[in-house]
């Protein structure tokens, strides 16, 4: 995101003001301008804190076991997820990226840290790092390999740079060897890094 550089005076003030005072000042301005109501901040914090990668994992496990849900999730993601019981109230549009044999997705936000928070909660620290954001678009195959995700050379890696209004989650492939597993057991396999595409779900050991 491109912003004007701060003046030296603004920078000094930001560096020396306690974060709590900055937050109070920002909140006051937003309320005076009528952009937010007092109750909206705690409500939004509660919504994000309620969300966690477990919710995303449960959505994936349902998609792995219920072909009708999978089809609904891919054709109208927000509607399918809300029908599953996850509230996306006030959240940006949701996009689902379906991994298939030969086609893997990796999500990044090179501008900041856009992330499907309503579904996955707060992003992991590495997702917001400058190194991840730069390397995901520049050398995704090398980046994945460093995390032990070595994809066949013929597999196309699709990097999805979340620059505007959508929030993207990866629907990974169901690992071999999980035939007959129930949803809860399958959900236990899915990690947050699988939902971003840095890793792929695998059997333990």
């Amino acid at each position: 995101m491109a912003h004007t550089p701060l003046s030296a005076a603004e920078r000094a003030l930001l560096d020396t003001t306690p974060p709590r005072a900055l937050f109070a000042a920002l909140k006051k301005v937003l309320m005076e301008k009528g952009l937010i109501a007092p109750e909206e901040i705690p409500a939004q914090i509660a919504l994000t804190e309620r969300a966690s990668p477990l919710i995303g994992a449960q959505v994936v496990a349902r998609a792995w076991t219920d072909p009708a849900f999978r089809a609904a999730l891919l054709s109208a993601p927000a509607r399918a997820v809300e029908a599953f019981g996850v509230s996306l109230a006030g959240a940006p549009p949701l996009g689902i990226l379906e991994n298939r044999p030969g086609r893997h997705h990796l999500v990044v936000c090179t501008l900041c840290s856009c992330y499907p928070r309503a579904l996955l909660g707060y992003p992991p620290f590495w997702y917001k790092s400058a190194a991840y954001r730069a390397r995901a678009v520049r050398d995704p195959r090398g980046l994945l390999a460093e995390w032990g995700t070595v994809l066949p050379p013929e597999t196309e890696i699709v990097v999805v740079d979340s620059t505007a209004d959508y929030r993207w989650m990866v629907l990974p492939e169901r690992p071999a060897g999980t035939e007959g597993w129930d949803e809860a057991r399958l959900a236990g396999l899915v990690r947050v890094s699988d939902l971003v595409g840095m890793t792929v779900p695998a059997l333990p050991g």
Partner: protein
Amino acid sequence: MNGFKPGQRVRVRAEWPERHGPVHIRTPHYVRGREGEIAAFLGVFPNPEDLAFDRPAPPLPLYHVRFRPEALWPAPVSGTEILVEIFAPWLIPL
């Protein structure tokens, strides 16, 4: 404005408004001036460049634009592609 079709070749405008004053831009530097193709129409959203400054924000078509790494990087990594959400005014038909 909303005339692009999937598969159509486009070039991202090589413009740098941040050089001239305060802006809020969702088009990353690394795709400006580069060629790609329309992958999908994603919908219509208020222009974030106006929203950020509390100006009236006209709705704009948003596209998923696909870039081959050869179009972006000096030493491209094979077998990869990059999808970026870009608003229509930033795109020039080729």
